[in-house]
Protein backbone atom coordinates (compact mmCIF):
# COMPACT_ATOMS: atom_id res chain seq x y z
CA UNK A 1 0.00 0.00 0.00
CA UNK A 2 1.26 3.43 -0.86
CA UNK A 3 0.73 6.48 1.20
CA UNK A 4 -1.50 8.19 -1.29
CA UNK A 5 -3.64 10.90 0.19
CA UNK A 6 -6.77 9.39 1.68
CA UNK A 7 -9.26 11.34 -0.33
CA UNK A 8 -9.65 10.09 -3.85
CA UNK A 9 -13.38 10.15 -4.18
CA UNK A 10 -15.92 12.85 -4.08
CA UNK A 11 -17.89 12.71 -0.93
CA UNK A 12 -21.32 13.85 -0.02
CA UNK A 13 -20.34 16.38 2.52
CA UNK A 14 -22.98 17.99 4.59
CA UNK A 15 -24.70 16.62 7.62
CA UNK A 16 -26.26 19.65 9.10
CA UNK A 17 -29.19 20.16 6.81
CA UNK A 18 -32.72 19.44 7.95
CA UNK A 19 -33.93 15.93 7.44
CA UNK A 20 -30.63 14.38 8.33
CA UNK A 21 -30.10 16.48 11.38
CA UNK A 22 -30.08 13.31 13.43
CA UNK A 23 -26.83 12.32 11.85
CA UNK A 24 -24.37 13.05 14.61
CA UNK A 25 -23.35 16.67 14.70
CA UNK A 26 -19.71 17.47 14.69
CA UNK A 27 -17.79 20.31 16.16
CA UNK A 28 -15.68 20.87 13.10
CA UNK A 29 -16.53 23.00 10.14
CA UNK A 30 -18.42 21.42 7.32
CA UNK A 31 -17.60 21.88 3.65
CA UNK A 32 -20.29 23.76 1.80
CA UNK A 33 -23.38 21.78 0.88
CA UNK A 34 -23.36 23.03 -2.67
CA UNK A 35 -21.00 20.28 -3.80
CA UNK A 36 -23.27 17.54 -2.58
CA UNK A 37 -23.82 14.85 -5.22
CA UNK A 38 -27.01 13.60 -3.69
CA UNK A 39 -29.63 16.22 -3.04
CA UNK A 40 -30.22 16.30 0.68
CA UNK A 41 -33.94 15.64 0.65
CA UNK A 42 -33.40 12.35 -1.17
CA UNK A 43 -31.10 10.96 1.42
CA UNK A 44 -33.34 8.83 3.52
CA UNK A 45 -32.35 7.04 6.65
CA UNK A 46 -32.16 3.26 6.32
CA UNK A 47 -30.93 2.29 9.75
CA UNK A 48 -31.33 4.37 12.85
CA UNK A 49 -29.49 3.06 15.86
CA UNK A 50 -30.14 4.65 19.20
CA UNK A 51 -28.39 3.74 22.40
CA UNK A 52 -27.50 0.36 21.03
CA UNK A 53 -25.67 -1.96 23.34
CA UNK A 54 -24.73 -5.55 22.63
CA UNK A 55 -24.05 -8.14 25.30
CA UNK A 56 -22.50 -11.56 24.99
CA UNK A 57 -23.88 -13.29 28.04
CA UNK A 58 -23.17 -10.90 30.88
CA UNK A 59 -20.29 -9.19 29.09
CA UNK A 60 -21.03 -5.90 27.41
CA UNK A 61 -19.21 -5.84 24.07
CA UNK A 62 -20.31 -2.47 22.72
CA UNK A 63 -22.24 0.39 24.15
CA UNK A 64 -23.59 3.79 23.23
CA UNK A 65 -23.95 3.37 19.51
CA UNK A 66 -26.10 6.13 18.05
CA UNK A 67 -25.98 6.54 14.33
CA UNK A 68 -28.05 6.88 11.21
CA UNK A 69 -27.13 5.06 8.05
CA UNK A 70 -28.33 6.79 4.93
CA UNK A 71 -29.65 5.16 1.83
CA UNK A 72 -27.44 4.73 -1.22
CA UNK A 73 -24.38 5.60 0.76
CA UNK A 74 -21.39 3.63 1.83
CA UNK A 75 -20.82 3.75 5.54
CA UNK A 76 -17.49 2.53 6.86
CA UNK A 77 -16.83 1.20 10.36
CA UNK A 78 -13.25 1.57 11.45
CA UNK A 79 -11.44 1.05 14.71
CA UNK A 80 -8.94 -1.18 16.47
CA UNK A 81 -9.44 -4.92 16.68
CA UNK A 82 -11.99 -5.98 19.27
CA UNK A 83 -13.78 -2.65 19.42
CA UNK A 84 -17.08 -4.12 18.31
CA UNK A 85 -17.31 -3.39 14.58
CA UNK A 86 -18.40 -6.92 13.76
CA UNK A 87 -20.73 -6.91 16.72
CA UNK A 88 -22.51 -3.77 15.53
CA UNK A 89 -22.71 -4.78 11.88
CA UNK A 90 -24.16 -8.16 12.85
CA UNK A 91 -26.87 -6.45 14.83
CA UNK A 92 -28.11 -4.82 11.61
CA UNK A 93 -29.44 -8.05 10.09
CA UNK A 94 -30.24 -9.85 13.32
CA UNK A 95 -27.31 -12.24 13.03
CA UNK A 96 -27.05 -12.15 16.82
CA UNK A 97 -30.27 -14.17 17.00
CA UNK A 98 -28.09 -17.15 16.17
CA UNK A 99 -25.49 -16.59 18.86
CA UNK A 100 -26.66 -18.10 22.12
CA UNK A 101 -26.44 -15.51 24.88
CA UNK A 102 -26.07 -12.50 22.58
CA UNK A 103 -28.50 -9.67 23.29
CA UNK A 104 -29.06 -6.42 21.49
CA UNK A 105 -30.37 -3.57 23.66
CA UNK A 106 -31.53 -0.16 22.55
CA UNK A 107 -33.42 0.33 19.32
CA UNK A 108 -32.51 -0.27 15.73
CA UNK A 109 -35.01 0.74 13.10
CA UNK A 110 -34.93 -0.20 9.46
CA UNK A 111 -36.85 2.27 7.29
CA UNK A 112 -38.62 3.29 10.45
CA UNK A 113 -39.65 -0.22 11.50
CA UNK A 114 -38.27 -1.68 14.67
CA UNK A 115 -35.90 -4.37 13.45
CA UNK A 116 -36.19 -6.34 16.66
CA UNK A 117 -39.95 -6.26 16.97
CA UNK A 118 -41.57 -9.63 17.53
CA UNK A 119 -43.62 -9.23 14.38
CA UNK A 120 -40.57 -9.00 12.17
CA UNK A 121 -39.56 -12.12 10.24
CA UNK A 122 -35.79 -12.52 10.65
CA UNK A 123 -35.55 -14.50 7.40
CA UNK A 124 -37.11 -11.61 5.49
CA UNK A 125 -34.76 -9.19 7.27
CA UNK A 126 -31.75 -11.19 6.15
CA UNK A 127 -33.01 -11.57 2.62
CA UNK A 128 -33.22 -7.79 2.30
CA UNK A 129 -30.06 -7.13 4.26
CA UNK A 130 -27.31 -9.27 2.84
CA UNK A 131 -24.04 -9.97 4.57
CA UNK A 132 -20.49 -10.85 3.64
CA UNK A 133 -18.63 -12.31 6.59
CA UNK A 134 -15.16 -11.61 7.86
CA UNK A 135 -14.18 -15.22 7.14
CA UNK A 136 -15.24 -16.56 3.74
CA UNK A 137 -17.81 -19.31 4.23
CA UNK A 138 -18.62 -20.99 0.91
CA UNK A 139 -21.02 -23.91 1.19
CA UNK A 140 -19.59 -27.34 0.42
CA UNK A 141 -21.46 -27.29 -2.86
CA UNK A 142 -20.54 -26.45 -6.42
CA UNK A 143 -19.72 -22.84 -7.29
CA UNK A 144 -22.95 -22.65 -9.25
CA UNK A 145 -25.06 -24.00 -6.42
CA UNK A 146 -23.45 -21.57 -4.00
CA UNK A 147 -24.62 -18.60 -6.03
CA UNK A 148 -27.97 -20.14 -6.92
CA UNK A 149 -28.67 -20.94 -3.28
CA UNK A 150 -30.29 -17.63 -2.41
CA UNK A 151 -32.36 -17.26 -5.60
CA UNK A 152 -33.60 -20.83 -5.13
CA UNK A 153 -34.80 -19.97 -1.63
CA UNK A 154 -36.81 -17.19 -3.16
CA UNK A 155 -38.42 -19.57 -5.59
CA UNK A 156 -36.38 -19.08 -8.75
CA UNK A 157 -36.37 -22.51 -10.35
CA UNK A 158 -35.90 -21.91 -14.04
CA UNK A 159 -32.50 -23.00 -15.16
CA UNK A 160 -32.03 -20.24 -17.72
CA UNK A 161 -32.95 -17.61 -15.16
CA UNK A 162 -30.56 -19.09 -12.58
CA UNK A 163 -27.81 -19.25 -15.19
CA UNK A 164 -28.21 -15.54 -15.81
CA UNK A 165 -28.23 -14.67 -12.14
CA UNK A 166 -25.11 -16.76 -11.50
CA UNK A 167 -23.18 -15.23 -14.36
CA UNK A 168 -24.25 -11.71 -13.46
CA UNK A 169 -23.40 -12.10 -9.77
CA UNK A 170 -20.02 -13.68 -10.47
CA UNK A 171 -19.19 -11.00 -13.01
CA UNK A 172 -20.02 -8.26 -10.55
CA UNK A 173 -17.87 -9.86 -7.90
CA UNK A 174 -14.95 -10.03 -10.35
CA UNK A 175 -14.84 -13.81 -10.26
CA UNK A 176 -16.55 -14.88 -13.48
CA UNK A 177 -13.40 -15.04 -15.58
CA UNK A 178 -11.66 -17.31 -13.11
CA UNK A 179 -14.47 -19.79 -12.58
CA UNK A 180 -16.64 -19.76 -15.67
CA UNK A 181 -15.20 -23.07 -16.84
CA UNK A 182 -15.62 -24.84 -13.53
CA UNK A 183 -18.99 -23.78 -12.24
CA UNK A 184 -19.79 -27.39 -11.41
CA UNK A 185 -16.74 -27.98 -9.26
CA UNK A 186 -16.70 -27.61 -5.53
CA UNK A 187 -16.47 -24.11 -4.09
CA UNK A 188 -14.13 -25.51 -1.44
CA UNK A 189 -11.41 -25.73 -4.08
CA UNK A 190 -11.23 -21.94 -4.39
CA UNK A 191 -8.46 -19.85 -2.89
CA UNK A 192 -9.26 -17.68 0.11
CA UNK A 193 -9.63 -14.55 -2.00
CA UNK A 194 -11.73 -16.33 -4.60
CA UNK A 195 -13.93 -17.78 -1.86
CA UNK A 196 -14.48 -14.29 -0.47
CA UNK A 197 -15.53 -12.99 -3.87
CA UNK A 198 -17.81 -16.01 -4.21
CA UNK A 199 -19.46 -15.01 -0.95
CA UNK A 200 -19.89 -11.47 -2.25
CA UNK A 201 -21.46 -12.85 -5.43
CA UNK A 202 -23.68 -15.11 -3.36
CA UNK A 203 -24.92 -12.17 -1.35
CA UNK A 204 -25.55 -10.11 -4.50
CA UNK A 205 -27.49 -12.90 -6.17
CA UNK A 206 -30.49 -12.39 -3.88
CA UNK A 207 -30.62 -8.74 -4.89
CA UNK A 208 -30.60 -7.25 -1.38
CA UNK A 209 -31.46 -3.69 -0.39
CA UNK A 210 -28.52 -3.43 1.95
CA UNK A 211 -25.15 -5.13 1.87
CA UNK A 212 -23.22 -5.53 5.10
CA UNK A 213 -19.57 -6.33 4.46
CA UNK A 214 -17.29 -7.34 7.29
CA UNK A 215 -13.74 -6.82 6.06
CA UNK A 216 -14.56 -8.13 2.60
CA UNK A 217 -11.15 -7.37 1.18
CA UNK A 218 -8.83 -8.57 3.90
CA UNK A 219 -7.96 -11.70 1.89
CA UNK A 220 -7.89 -10.07 -1.51
CA UNK A 221 -5.00 -8.90 -3.65
CA UNK A 222 -4.90 -5.24 -4.73
CA UNK A 223 -6.44 -6.01 -8.11
CA UNK A 224 -9.42 -7.85 -6.69
CA UNK A 225 -9.71 -5.22 -3.97
CA UNK A 226 -9.90 -2.50 -6.60
CA UNK A 227 -12.55 -4.49 -8.46
CA UNK A 228 -14.62 -4.86 -5.30
CA UNK A 229 -14.27 -1.17 -4.54
CA UNK A 230 -15.41 -0.32 -8.05
CA UNK A 231 -18.29 -2.69 -7.56
CA UNK A 232 -19.26 -0.92 -4.37
CA UNK A 233 -19.34 2.40 -6.16
CA UNK A 234 -21.47 0.85 -8.85
CA UNK A 235 -23.82 -0.81 -6.37
CA UNK A 236 -24.29 2.39 -4.43
CA UNK A 237 -26.90 3.58 -6.90
CA UNK A 238 -29.15 0.70 -5.99
CA UNK A 239 -28.29 -0.29 -2.49
CA UNK A 240 -26.89 0.80 0.81
CA UNK A 241 -23.56 -0.56 1.93
CA UNK A 242 -22.00 -0.84 5.36
CA UNK A 243 -18.40 -1.95 5.34
CA UNK A 244 -16.03 -2.81 8.14
CA UNK A 245 -12.44 -2.30 7.19
CA UNK A 246 -9.02 -2.14 8.76
CA UNK A 247 -7.69 -0.43 5.71
CA UNK A 248 -7.79 3.34 6.20
CA UNK A 249 -7.19 4.11 2.55
CA UNK A 250 -10.05 1.87 1.66
CA UNK A 251 -12.40 3.58 4.08
CA UNK A 252 -11.30 6.92 2.71
CA UNK A 253 -11.61 5.80 -0.90
CA UNK A 254 -14.98 4.16 -0.83
CA UNK A 255 -17.06 5.48 2.01
CA UNK A 256 -19.31 8.50 2.30
CA UNK A 257 -19.43 8.37 6.05
CA UNK A 258 -17.18 6.81 8.58
CA UNK A 259 -17.85 5.63 12.10
CA UNK A 260 -14.86 5.29 14.35
CA UNK A 261 -15.14 2.88 17.27
CA UNK A 262 -12.73 2.14 20.02
CA UNK A 263 -12.58 -0.09 23.07
CA UNK A 264 -12.02 1.47 26.45
CA UNK A 265 -12.16 0.12 29.97
CA UNK A 266 -15.48 0.81 31.73
CA UNK A 267 -15.91 1.58 35.45
CA UNK A 268 -15.14 -2.03 36.34
CA UNK A 269 -12.11 -2.14 34.09
CA UNK A 270 -13.62 -4.36 31.41
CA UNK A 271 -12.99 -3.31 27.86
CA UNK A 272 -16.13 -2.17 26.12
CA UNK A 273 -16.38 -0.96 22.57
CA UNK A 274 -18.04 2.36 21.85
CA UNK A 275 -18.74 4.68 18.99
CA UNK A 276 -16.39 7.63 19.23
CA UNK A 277 -17.20 9.63 16.18
CA UNK A 278 -19.43 9.38 13.16
CA UNK A 279 -19.23 11.84 10.36
CA UNK A 280 -18.66 12.46 6.71
CA UNK A 281 -15.58 10.51 5.75
CA UNK A 282 -13.66 13.56 4.62
CA UNK A 283 -14.18 15.20 7.99
CA UNK A 284 -13.11 12.08 9.87
CA UNK A 285 -9.93 11.87 7.87
CA UNK A 286 -9.04 15.53 7.67
CA UNK A 287 -10.54 17.25 10.67
CA UNK A 288 -11.53 14.59 13.18
CA UNK A 289 -13.45 15.97 16.13
CA UNK A 290 -12.00 13.61 18.67
CA UNK A 291 -8.36 13.22 19.57
CA UNK A 292 -8.81 9.41 19.72
CA UNK A 293 -9.94 9.37 16.10
CA UNK A 294 -7.04 11.52 15.11
CA UNK A 295 -4.63 9.32 17.01
CA UNK A 296 -5.91 6.20 15.34
CA UNK A 297 -5.91 7.65 11.86
CA UNK A 298 -2.57 9.35 12.05
CA UNK A 299 -1.06 6.28 13.67
CA UNK A 300 -2.03 4.34 10.63
CA UNK A 301 -0.83 6.89 8.17
CA UNK A 302 2.40 7.42 10.07
Amino acid at each position, binding site marked *: MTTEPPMTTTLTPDTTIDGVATLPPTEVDQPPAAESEVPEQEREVVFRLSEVEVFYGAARAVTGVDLDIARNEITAFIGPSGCGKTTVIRSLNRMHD*LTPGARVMGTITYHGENLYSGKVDP*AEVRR*RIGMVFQKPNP*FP*KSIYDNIA*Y*GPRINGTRKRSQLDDIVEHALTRAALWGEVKDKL*KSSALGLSGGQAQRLCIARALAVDPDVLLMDEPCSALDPIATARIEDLMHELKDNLTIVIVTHNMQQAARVSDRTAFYTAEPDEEGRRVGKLVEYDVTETIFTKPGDPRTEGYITGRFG
Partner: protein
Amino acid sequence: MTATVVPPAPPTPRSPSGSILRPRKATGWRRFKSGLASVLFVLAFVAAAIPLIALVYYVTREGLKVFSWEFLTTELPFSQRSVDGGIGPAVVGTIVITVGATLMAVPLGVLGGIYLNEYAGKSKFGALVRFLSEILTGVPSIVMGLFIYTFWVLRVKEQTGFAGSLALACLMLPVVIRTSEEMLKLVPHELREGSLALGSRKSRTIRTVVLPHAAPGIVSGSLLAVARAAGETAPLLFTIGATQTANWNLFEGTNTALSVQIFGNANSPYIPAQERAFGAAFTLILIVFVATALARIVTVVYTRRVSGKS
Protein backbone atom coordinates in the same frame (compact mmCIF):
# COMPACT_ATOMS: atom_id res chain seq x y z
CA MET B 1 15.07 9.35 9.93
CA THR B 2 18.21 8.85 11.91
CA ALA B 3 20.26 5.80 11.22
CA THR B 4 20.55 3.64 14.29
CA VAL B 5 23.32 1.15 14.72
CA VAL B 6 21.84 -2.32 14.75
CA PRO B 7 24.01 -5.04 16.24
CA PRO B 8 24.60 -7.83 13.70
CA ALA B 9 22.18 -10.75 14.13
CA PRO B 10 23.73 -13.96 15.41
CA PRO B 11 24.39 -16.49 12.65
CA THR B 12 21.77 -19.18 11.99
CA PRO B 13 22.60 -22.19 14.16
CA ARG B 14 24.00 -25.08 12.17
CA SER B 15 24.45 -28.74 12.92
CA PRO B 16 28.02 -30.07 13.08
CA SER B 17 27.68 -31.19 9.46
CA GLY B 18 27.23 -27.54 8.49
CA SER B 19 23.72 -28.07 7.21
CA ILE B 20 20.75 -26.18 8.64
CA LEU B 21 18.22 -28.60 7.19
CA ARG B 22 19.44 -31.94 8.46
CA PRO B 23 18.43 -32.86 12.00
CA ARG B 24 20.59 -31.76 14.80
CA LYS B 25 22.15 -34.70 16.55
CA ALA B 26 19.71 -36.29 18.99
CA THR B 27 21.11 -37.24 22.33
CA GLY B 28 21.24 -40.94 23.16
CA TRP B 29 18.41 -40.72 25.71
CA ARG B 30 16.11 -38.89 23.32
CA ARG B 31 16.84 -41.30 20.56
CA PHE B 32 16.12 -44.18 22.89
CA LYS B 33 12.74 -42.69 23.90
CA SER B 34 11.80 -42.10 20.30
CA GLY B 35 12.74 -45.64 19.32
CA LEU B 36 10.89 -47.10 22.27
CA ALA B 37 7.76 -45.17 21.39
CA SER B 38 7.90 -46.38 17.78
CA VAL B 39 8.25 -49.98 18.92
CA LEU B 40 5.30 -49.59 21.29
CA PHE B 41 3.12 -48.14 18.54
CA VAL B 42 3.89 -51.03 16.22
CA LEU B 43 3.22 -53.55 19.00
CA ALA B 44 -0.09 -51.91 19.85
CA PHE B 45 -1.13 -52.02 16.23
CA VAL B 46 -0.17 -55.67 15.90
CA ALA B 47 -2.00 -56.52 19.12
CA ALA B 48 -5.11 -54.85 17.79
CA ALA B 49 -4.84 -56.38 14.35
CA ILE B 50 -4.07 -59.97 15.32
CA PRO B 51 -7.51 -60.89 16.73
CA LEU B 52 -9.24 -59.21 13.79
CA ILE B 53 -7.14 -60.94 11.16
CA ALA B 54 -7.30 -64.27 12.99
CA LEU B 55 -11.06 -64.05 13.28
CA VAL B 56 -11.65 -63.17 9.66
CA TYR B 57 -9.15 -65.80 8.51
CA TYR B 58 -10.57 -68.58 10.67
CA VAL B 59 -14.22 -67.86 9.90
CA THR B 60 -13.47 -67.56 6.20
CA ARG B 61 -11.48 -70.79 6.10
CA GLU B 62 -14.10 -72.77 7.98
CA GLY B 63 -17.01 -71.02 6.34
CA LEU B 64 -15.82 -71.62 2.79
CA LYS B 65 -15.94 -75.40 3.44
CA VAL B 66 -19.72 -75.31 3.22
CA PHE B 67 -20.29 -71.98 1.47
CA SER B 68 -22.00 -72.18 -1.92
CA TRP B 69 -25.00 -70.77 -3.71
CA GLU B 70 -26.86 -73.93 -2.65
CA PHE B 71 -25.96 -73.22 0.96
CA LEU B 72 -27.25 -69.66 0.74
CA THR B 73 -30.56 -70.51 -0.81
CA THR B 74 -31.75 -73.96 0.33
CA GLU B 75 -33.98 -74.41 3.32
CA LEU B 76 -32.83 -75.45 6.74
CA PRO B 77 -32.47 -79.21 7.34
CA PHE B 78 -34.93 -80.82 9.73
CA SER B 79 -32.18 -82.51 11.68
CA GLN B 80 -28.98 -80.94 12.96
CA ARG B 81 -27.23 -84.15 11.96
CA SER B 82 -28.15 -83.74 8.33
CA VAL B 83 -25.34 -82.73 5.99
CA ASP B 84 -27.86 -81.41 3.44
CA GLY B 85 -29.74 -78.17 3.56
CA GLY B 86 -28.57 -74.58 3.77
CA ILE B 87 -29.35 -71.39 5.58
CA GLY B 88 -31.64 -69.74 3.03
CA PRO B 89 -34.40 -68.79 5.51
CA ALA B 90 -31.85 -67.27 7.88
CA VAL B 91 -30.34 -65.12 5.12
CA VAL B 92 -33.81 -63.91 4.20
CA GLY B 93 -34.70 -63.31 7.86
CA THR B 94 -31.52 -61.35 8.62
CA ILE B 95 -32.05 -59.16 5.58
CA VAL B 96 -35.71 -58.31 6.17
CA ILE B 97 -35.37 -57.91 9.93
CA THR B 98 -32.27 -55.71 9.70
CA VAL B 99 -33.66 -53.63 6.86
CA GLY B 100 -36.90 -53.20 8.82
CA ALA B 101 -34.99 -52.12 11.92
CA THR B 102 -32.82 -49.72 9.90
CA LEU B 103 -35.84 -48.12 8.25
CA MET B 104 -37.31 -47.44 11.68
CA ALA B 105 -34.24 -46.50 13.68
CA VAL B 106 -32.13 -44.46 11.26
CA PRO B 107 -34.69 -41.83 10.18
CA LEU B 108 -35.98 -41.50 13.71
CA GLY B 109 -32.47 -41.37 15.14
CA VAL B 110 -31.29 -38.75 12.65
CA LEU B 111 -34.37 -36.64 13.39
CA GLY B 112 -33.61 -37.05 17.10
CA GLY B 113 -30.03 -35.94 16.53
CA ILE B 114 -31.25 -32.93 14.55
CA TYR B 115 -33.65 -32.03 17.32
CA LEU B 116 -30.99 -32.30 20.00
CA ASN B 117 -28.31 -30.35 18.18
CA GLU B 118 -30.33 -27.80 16.22
CA TYR B 119 -33.41 -27.13 18.29
CA ALA B 120 -33.09 -28.35 21.87
CA GLY B 121 -30.09 -26.22 22.77
CA LYS B 122 -29.73 -26.13 26.52
CA SER B 123 -33.43 -26.78 27.22
CA LYS B 124 -34.50 -29.14 30.00
CA PHE B 125 -36.36 -31.38 27.60
CA GLY B 126 -33.31 -31.66 25.39
CA ALA B 127 -31.19 -32.61 28.36
CA LEU B 128 -33.78 -35.22 29.35
CA VAL B 129 -33.84 -36.75 25.86
CA ARG B 130 -30.06 -36.82 25.78
CA PHE B 131 -29.94 -38.47 29.20
CA LEU B 132 -32.55 -41.10 28.35
CA SER B 133 -30.89 -41.94 25.09
CA GLU B 134 -27.61 -42.40 26.92
CA ILE B 135 -29.31 -44.80 29.32
CA LEU B 136 -30.83 -46.63 26.39
CA THR B 137 -27.33 -47.15 24.97
CA GLY B 138 -26.42 -49.11 28.06
CA VAL B 139 -29.41 -51.45 28.06
CA PRO B 140 -28.26 -55.03 27.39
CA SER B 141 -29.63 -56.43 24.16
CA ILE B 142 -31.34 -59.35 25.88
CA VAL B 143 -33.30 -56.90 28.01
CA MET B 144 -34.39 -55.16 24.82
CA GLY B 145 -35.58 -58.52 23.49
CA LEU B 146 -37.56 -59.19 26.65
CA PHE B 147 -39.00 -55.69 26.55
CA ILE B 148 -40.36 -56.17 23.04
CA TYR B 149 -41.52 -59.65 24.00
CA THR B 150 -43.66 -58.38 26.88
CA PHE B 151 -44.79 -55.14 25.25
CA TRP B 152 -45.37 -56.31 21.71
CA VAL B 153 -45.26 -60.08 21.20
CA LEU B 154 -47.49 -60.92 24.16
CA ARG B 155 -49.91 -58.23 23.07
CA VAL B 156 -50.26 -59.16 19.41
CA LYS B 157 -49.83 -62.83 20.35
CA GLU B 158 -47.55 -63.54 17.42
CA GLN B 159 -43.83 -63.83 16.94
CA THR B 160 -42.86 -62.07 13.73
CA GLY B 161 -39.80 -60.69 12.01
CA PHE B 162 -41.24 -57.28 12.76
CA ALA B 163 -41.02 -57.88 16.49
CA GLY B 164 -37.34 -58.64 15.96
CA SER B 165 -36.98 -55.46 13.92
CA LEU B 166 -38.51 -53.51 16.77
CA ALA B 167 -36.04 -54.93 19.25
CA LEU B 168 -33.08 -54.23 16.97
CA ALA B 169 -34.39 -50.73 16.24
CA CYS B 170 -34.50 -49.98 19.97
CA LEU B 171 -30.85 -51.03 20.17
CA MET B 172 -29.83 -48.94 17.20
CA LEU B 173 -31.81 -45.81 18.00
CA PRO B 174 -29.66 -44.32 20.77
CA VAL B 175 -26.49 -44.98 18.80
CA VAL B 176 -27.89 -43.24 15.74
CA ILE B 177 -29.13 -40.30 17.83
CA ARG B 178 -25.74 -39.90 19.44
CA THR B 179 -23.75 -40.12 16.20
CA SER B 180 -26.08 -37.75 14.39
CA GLU B 181 -25.83 -35.21 17.16
CA GLU B 182 -22.05 -35.48 17.26
CA MET B 183 -21.74 -35.16 13.49
CA LEU B 184 -24.09 -32.18 13.35
CA LYS B 185 -22.04 -30.54 16.08
CA LEU B 186 -19.03 -30.68 13.75
CA VAL B 187 -20.74 -28.65 11.02
CA PRO B 188 -19.08 -25.23 11.12
CA HIS B 189 -21.27 -22.49 12.52
CA GLU B 190 -20.22 -20.21 9.67
CA LEU B 191 -22.05 -22.40 7.18
CA ARG B 192 -25.32 -22.07 9.05
CA GLU B 193 -24.81 -18.33 9.30
CA GLY B 194 -24.01 -18.10 5.61
CA SER B 195 -27.25 -19.80 4.72
CA LEU B 196 -29.40 -17.87 7.18
CA ALA B 197 -27.83 -14.61 6.05
CA LEU B 198 -29.28 -15.26 2.59
CA GLY B 199 -32.77 -15.32 4.03
CA SER B 200 -32.98 -19.09 4.35
CA ARG B 201 -35.12 -20.50 7.13
CA LYS B 202 -33.71 -22.80 9.71
CA SER B 203 -35.40 -25.94 8.41
CA ARG B 204 -34.14 -25.25 4.92
CA THR B 205 -30.66 -24.48 6.18
CA ILE B 206 -30.58 -27.81 7.97
CA ARG B 207 -31.84 -29.67 4.93
CA THR B 208 -29.64 -28.05 2.32
CA VAL B 209 -26.45 -27.11 4.13
CA VAL B 210 -26.12 -28.80 7.49
CA LEU B 211 -27.27 -32.34 6.70
CA PRO B 212 -25.27 -32.73 3.46
CA HIS B 213 -22.18 -31.65 5.37
CA ALA B 214 -22.81 -34.13 8.18
CA ALA B 215 -24.10 -36.95 5.97
CA PRO B 216 -20.91 -38.98 5.56
CA GLY B 217 -20.37 -39.10 9.31
CA ILE B 218 -23.97 -39.93 10.04
CA VAL B 219 -23.89 -42.73 7.49
CA SER B 220 -20.70 -44.18 9.00
CA GLY B 221 -22.13 -44.10 12.49
CA SER B 222 -25.44 -45.56 11.41
CA LEU B 223 -23.65 -48.32 9.54
CA LEU B 224 -21.84 -49.34 12.67
CA ALA B 225 -25.17 -49.54 14.44
CA VAL B 226 -26.70 -51.54 11.59
CA ALA B 227 -23.77 -53.94 11.48
CA ARG B 228 -23.95 -54.47 15.21
CA ALA B 229 -27.69 -55.05 15.03
CA ALA B 230 -27.36 -57.51 12.16
CA GLY B 231 -25.22 -59.72 14.38
CA GLU B 232 -27.41 -59.53 17.48
CA THR B 233 -28.91 -62.78 18.69
CA ALA B 234 -30.44 -62.07 22.07
CA PRO B 235 -33.11 -59.56 20.98
CA LEU B 236 -34.34 -62.05 18.38
CA LEU B 237 -34.54 -65.15 20.55
CA PHE B 238 -37.96 -64.39 22.05
CA THR B 239 -39.32 -62.19 19.35
CA ILE B 240 -39.10 -63.88 15.96
CA GLY B 241 -39.78 -67.53 16.80
CA ALA B 242 -38.37 -70.12 14.45
CA THR B 243 -39.00 -71.33 10.94
CA GLN B 244 -37.66 -73.91 8.58
CA THR B 245 -38.73 -72.15 5.40
CA ALA B 246 -37.91 -68.72 4.06
CA ASN B 247 -40.35 -66.01 5.15
CA TRP B 248 -40.06 -62.73 3.26
CA ASN B 249 -43.04 -61.32 5.12
CA LEU B 250 -41.88 -59.18 7.98
CA PHE B 251 -45.32 -58.78 9.51
CA GLU B 252 -46.71 -62.31 9.42
CA GLY B 253 -45.38 -65.61 10.56
CA THR B 254 -42.31 -66.57 12.49
CA ASN B 255 -38.86 -65.98 11.11
CA THR B 256 -35.26 -66.84 11.71
CA ALA B 257 -31.91 -65.09 11.33
CA LEU B 258 -28.27 -65.89 10.73
CA SER B 259 -27.30 -64.94 14.24
CA VAL B 260 -29.90 -67.29 15.68
CA GLN B 261 -28.68 -70.09 13.41
CA ILE B 262 -25.08 -69.51 14.45
CA PHE B 263 -26.16 -69.61 18.08
CA GLY B 264 -28.17 -72.82 17.66
CA ASN B 265 -25.77 -74.68 15.44
CA ALA B 266 -22.54 -73.73 17.15
CA ASN B 267 -23.89 -75.22 20.38
CA SER B 268 -24.66 -78.46 18.63
CA PRO B 269 -22.53 -81.58 19.14
CA TYR B 270 -22.97 -82.56 15.48
CA ILE B 271 -20.25 -81.71 13.01
CA PRO B 272 -22.60 -80.76 10.08
CA ALA B 273 -24.35 -78.28 12.34
CA GLN B 274 -21.06 -76.76 13.46
CA GLU B 275 -20.00 -76.40 9.86
CA ARG B 276 -23.29 -74.71 9.09
CA ALA B 277 -22.62 -72.31 11.96
CA PHE B 278 -19.31 -71.33 10.38
CA GLY B 279 -20.98 -71.00 7.03
CA ALA B 280 -23.62 -68.76 8.55
CA ALA B 281 -21.00 -66.66 10.36
CA PHE B 282 -19.08 -66.18 7.13
CA THR B 283 -22.30 -65.22 5.36
CA LEU B 284 -23.13 -62.66 8.03
CA ILE B 285 -19.70 -61.04 7.75
CA LEU B 286 -20.12 -60.97 3.98
CA ILE B 287 -23.56 -59.35 4.16
CA VAL B 288 -22.36 -56.67 6.58
CA PHE B 289 -19.33 -56.03 4.41
CA VAL B 290 -21.36 -55.68 1.23
CA ALA B 291 -23.95 -53.45 2.93
CA THR B 292 -21.21 -51.22 4.33
CA ALA B 293 -19.50 -50.92 0.97
CA LEU B 294 -22.78 -50.08 -0.76
CA ALA B 295 -23.72 -47.45 1.79
CA ARG B 296 -20.30 -45.84 1.47
CA ILE B 297 -20.55 -45.68 -2.30
CA VAL B 298 -23.99 -44.13 -2.04
CA THR B 299 -22.71 -41.51 0.39
CA VAL B 300 -19.75 -40.63 -1.78
CA VAL B 301 -21.96 -40.25 -4.83
CA TYR B 302 -24.48 -38.22 -2.86
CA THR B 303 -21.89 -35.90 -1.34
CA ARG B 304 -20.29 -35.44 -4.75
CA ARG B 305 -23.63 -34.54 -6.20
CA VAL B 306 -24.42 -31.88 -3.62
CA SER B 307 -20.90 -30.53 -3.29
CA GLY B 308 -19.79 -30.56 -6.90
CA LYS B 309 -16.90 -32.56 -8.28
CA SER B 310 -13.26 -32.37 -7.14
